[in-house]
């Protein structure tokens, strides 16, 4: 048995060494094994062999030289190149097997990484399914699909991607029908529809042949007429599904796993000097998956004297999580305005949270140009309620509160269908974003907020 092991180890040497000395090496092993019997001599033998292997193996490979098996028959003259043939070795079956295994492993790894990139897209789509992000074709979750219009069956884009007048006409008619049918303000719907027609008749739409530019033009025409920043027309190069399916059980499971692996995007929960709590939250994840993580984070910060929420990398998420987090900052139920939802009992925070001590502590929110959607919901309301000081940059301005309607294969639109009460001002953060109380570069926001917090605590 031990001889077999050594024979196997010998195969680690280059083939030329094995051919010349393999048998003798094995013979030497047999001699020593026969002469050195007993536990300790055997142990010494094996330690010698392993040491020998480690010592001599690199040298053998360093000095490996292919044997010359043939040479040009022509006589050699100075300056004239001649050719030799080096011996070719067929790879051993073991080496071939090893090569196959490595290739398989590499291919599996590539396949795996491609697949996980796919998952990431799925998670993104899932994470924004209630709060659509920037209106690109890949992020159009908006599950509340309404019946299609007549135009929906006709493709609006020709083969070469250019729009012609008839197709534009169809998109405009589709938009008008949707406005009249679904827009929450009937008067404005009428006015906006007329405006679209007037623009069309005046030939304002004629120079445009590009889908995306046409969508932008219609959006601005509708916003001018209605003064409603939530109305928009969206162009998608990729065909829009007629009946977008909601997330599957598999999508939800992937989302749950991604959230568990990423600590539900609660990236940092720390207590900074002067007993200032610091929470870096990179989204507002679904409470059905992340409520425990959220509560654990807030409990850890329960005894701080001031709290900083870092939303600089937060692009939004679930309104329910916004409400859950905001609940910790009040000792009574507080109304939080959300342009996406009609005012219901869900519009009030579930404060006080039992055992919570943060309700009267100074709060600071760090914002950046990337702070979007749900994070703007959180920032806008806490700013308007004068419950938090916003430090950083004006936010992205992504409200996207309209309900999605498909116009045809490449065009869709967002239409406001809710009438929530905004007690703070006429407009919200749609397009314009939330302005901070203290404007500094996003990179300096944490330092500034810490200074402000210390000053506030010293005054107390």
């Amino acid at each position: 048995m031990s001889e077999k092991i050594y024979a196997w180890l010998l195969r680690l040497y280059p083939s030329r060494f094995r051919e010349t000395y393999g048998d003798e090496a094995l013979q030497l092993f047999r001699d020593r094994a026969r002469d050195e019997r007993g536990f300790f001599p055997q142990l010494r033998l094996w330690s010698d062999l392993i040491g020998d292997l480690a010592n001599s193996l690199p040298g053998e490979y360093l000095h490996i030289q292919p044997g010359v098996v043939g040479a040009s028959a022509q006589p050699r003259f100075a300056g004239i190149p001649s050719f030799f043939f080096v011996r070719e070795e067929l790879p051993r079956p073991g080496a071939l097997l090893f090569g196959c295994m490595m290739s398989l492993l590499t291919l599996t790894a590539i396949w795996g990484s491609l697949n996980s990139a796919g998952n990431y897209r799925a998670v993104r789509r899932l994470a924004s399914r209630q709060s659509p992000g920037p209106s690109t074709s890949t992020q159009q979750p908006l599950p509340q699909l309404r019946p299609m219009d007549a135009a929906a069956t006709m493709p609006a884009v020709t083969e070469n991607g250019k729009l012609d007048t008839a197709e534009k006409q169809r998109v405009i008619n589709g938009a008008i029908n949707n406005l009249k049918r679904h827009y929450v303000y009937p008067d404005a719907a009428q006015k906006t529809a007329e405006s679209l027609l007037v623009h069309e008749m005046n030939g304002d739409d004629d120079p445009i042949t590009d889908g995306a530019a046409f969508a932008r033009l219609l959006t601005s025409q509708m916003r001018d007429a209605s003064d409603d920043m939530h109305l928009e027309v969206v162009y998608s190069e990729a065909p829009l599904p007629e009946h977008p399916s909601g997330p599957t059980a598999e999508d939800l499971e992937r989302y749950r796993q991604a959230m568990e692996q990423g600590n539900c995007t609660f990236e940092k929960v720390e207590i900074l000097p002067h007993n200032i709590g610091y929470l870096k939250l990179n989204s507002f994840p679904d409470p059905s998956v992340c409520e425990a993580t959220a509560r654990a984070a807030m409990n850890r910060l329960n005894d701080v004297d001031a709290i900083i929420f870092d939303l600089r990398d937060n692009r939004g998420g679930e309104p329910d999580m916004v409400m859950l987090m905001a609940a910790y900052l009040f000792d009574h139920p507080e109304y939080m305005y959300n342009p996406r939802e009609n005012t219901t009992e869900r519009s009030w925070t579930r404060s006080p949270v039992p055992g919570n001590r943060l309700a009267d502590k100074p709060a600071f929110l760090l914002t950046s140009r990337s702070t979007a959607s749900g994070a703007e919901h959180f920032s806008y309301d806490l700013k308007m309620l004068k419950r938090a000081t916003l430090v950083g940059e004006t936010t992205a301005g992504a409200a996207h509160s309209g309900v999605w309607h498909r116009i045809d294969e490449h065009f869709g639109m967002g239409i406001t269908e809710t009438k929530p009460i905004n007690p703070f001002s006429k407009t919200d953060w749609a397009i314009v974003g939330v302005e901070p109380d203290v404007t500094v570069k996003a990179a300096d926001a944490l330092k500034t907020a810490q200074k402000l917090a210390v000053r506030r605590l010293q005054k107390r």
Partner: protein
Amino acid sequence: MPKRKLHPLPAAAFQILLSLVGEDLHGYGIMRQVAAQTDGRMRLGPGTLYSSIQTLLEGKFIEEVDVREDANLGQERRRYYRLTVAGRKLARSEAERLAGLLRVARTKKVLRGEYV
């Protein structure tokens, strides 16, 4: 591709040259002789032994003499090696180099005893 070096002479190669002074030996014989002449401190493993032998053969410091059985070790046929004149010279020059070193060590009082 770098060639195997014998300058400076590796300890294993020197011990193999010394073991072959006076008698022809096969691989296992060399290994046992080296162990004996170093009081068991150097036990050459097959890899080191045969790569050293190969180097010494390439430099013509040793040569293969014949393939025969060793009466004490059964029926197996073994390759025997013999020291060449060049090998003997190489062993002597290495021994002289070491002796020179030893003299230095003694003058510096690192080592006591007679001059060699």
